[in-house]
């Protein structure tokens, strides 16, 4: 006889909500990248609306978690699962916020010619997107290996970020007319870099959920490559 049927049902519901929120976040990133590349202000506007839906999802899941904690006294794996859900919804919501922030800039820049062809930013966006997808996948499958892969790939995103910043600084130094859009592009790069960080956090929480150990995995992976380049490099 399987016991605690109603609690298990509550946990299943929670899992399903997280999956749905995850797919909304993924959709938001996909649209963000497309809108940025194509300078599609209309799509960017939809991302902003979608962000409210994701925010509401976060609140809904948060409430479910609190309710399960208050009423079901979760312990051991159950407690980790609910704590993990509470933590990763914040990261997912922040990822969606970053998407929305990029969408806002996209709207502002629409109709203006880009100061440079966008090559590295879409590349970085793709990497960030893959990290987010993998992190959500790792959660769904409770796959530690995949979660660790996410954490390990944060370095590549960081490296691209540094490169983009250097390029933009040089561009703005040479042509002050590019400053306005240069700063916007810098922000976009920063938002993408933060997406990678949040995906890394999700990966770390997945590992915690499975093993009970919560380490800063990204720190372990990029210990040897810690390097902050100066602007005039």
């Amino acid at each position, binding site marked *: *006889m399987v*016991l*605690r*049927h*109603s*609690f298990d049902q509550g946990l299943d519901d929670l899992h399903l909500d997280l999956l749905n929120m995850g797919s909304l976040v993924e959709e938001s990133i996909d649209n963000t990248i497309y809108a940025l590349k194509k300078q599609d202000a209309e799509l960017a506007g939809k991302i902003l609306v979608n962000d409210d839906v994701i925010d509401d999802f976060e609140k809904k899941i948060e409430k479910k978690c*609190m*309710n399960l904690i*208050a*009423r*079901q*006294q979760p312990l051991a794996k159950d407690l980790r699962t609910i704590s993990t859900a509470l933590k990763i919804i914040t990261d997912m919501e922040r990822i969606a916020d970053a998407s929305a922030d990029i969408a806002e800039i996209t709207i502002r820049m629409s109709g203006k010619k880009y100061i440079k062809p966008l090559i590295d930013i879409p590349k970085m966006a793709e990497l960030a997107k893959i990290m987010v997808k993998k992190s959500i996948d790792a959660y769904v499958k409770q796959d530690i290996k995949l979660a660790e892969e996410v954490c390990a790939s944060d370095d590549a995103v960081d490296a691209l970020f540094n490169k983009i910043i250097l390029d933009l600084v040089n561009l703005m130094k040479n042509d002050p007319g590019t400053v306005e859009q240069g700063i916007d592009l810098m922000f976009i790069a920063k938002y993408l870099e933060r997406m990678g960080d949040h995906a890394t956090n999700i990966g770390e929480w997945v590992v915690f959920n499975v093993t009970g150990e919560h380490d800063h995995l990204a720190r372990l992976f990029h210990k040897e490559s810690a390097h902050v380049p100066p602007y005039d490099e």
Partner: protein
Amino acid sequence: MNMQKIHTNKLNLFYTDVHALKEISIDIEEKQVTALIGPSGCGKSTFLKTLNRMNDLIAGVKITGDVLLDGLNIYGPYDIVELRKRVGMVFQKPNPFPMSIFDNIAYGPRIHGVKSREKLEELVENSLRSAALWDEVKDRLKKSALGLSGGQQQRLCIARVLAVNPEVVLMDEPTSALDPISTMKIEDLMEELKEKYTIIIVTHNMQQAGRISDKTAFFLHGEIVEFNQTEKIFSKPADKRTEDYITGRFG
């Protein structure tokens, strides 16, 4: 929103000079689990017993106010045998009769006039199935009920109540004498039973109230301090006394 099954209106109960229930007015919804919590002596068990007039036989008890079951006052002219058929009760300690498992369950239906062997067999099987006990006892229905474990005995008592087809089941700390696994089995059972029955449970175990009930009433000194959705009571109680009790600050 479910239908209202029981409504009490300014219910007062005195044990001689002791005012044990004070102006209790509460609506209990049909096919829901309502939990009554509160410290010892707060009146929760007394209140439960007023719902099928189990206090009637206690010397010195005086009751004022109304208890309406489906709109009819059970303290008016009301057939008590009929009342206790409609409102069954499960007690803290399992109390099977010293007879076979089969006869324990068939006892109520027999009293209410069911004679056909076939009908009784059907009732016994259905009741035991509803109480999630059938698979464990189907091969020893003729054996004494006293040979069952505590948890099984309690489920037998629940089956015995279900056999007379009640509408409301009152449970007075039904798991306090049971181990955690048996407790969880009874809790899961309640979840299933509420599809058909209105359940009111007194429990000293607040966590249990949190796990199983739809609504919770917090009793203190014979009064209801707060009655609300269990989710509200356990996450954001309105009264500081409720908060203090459920967080273990007093009680």
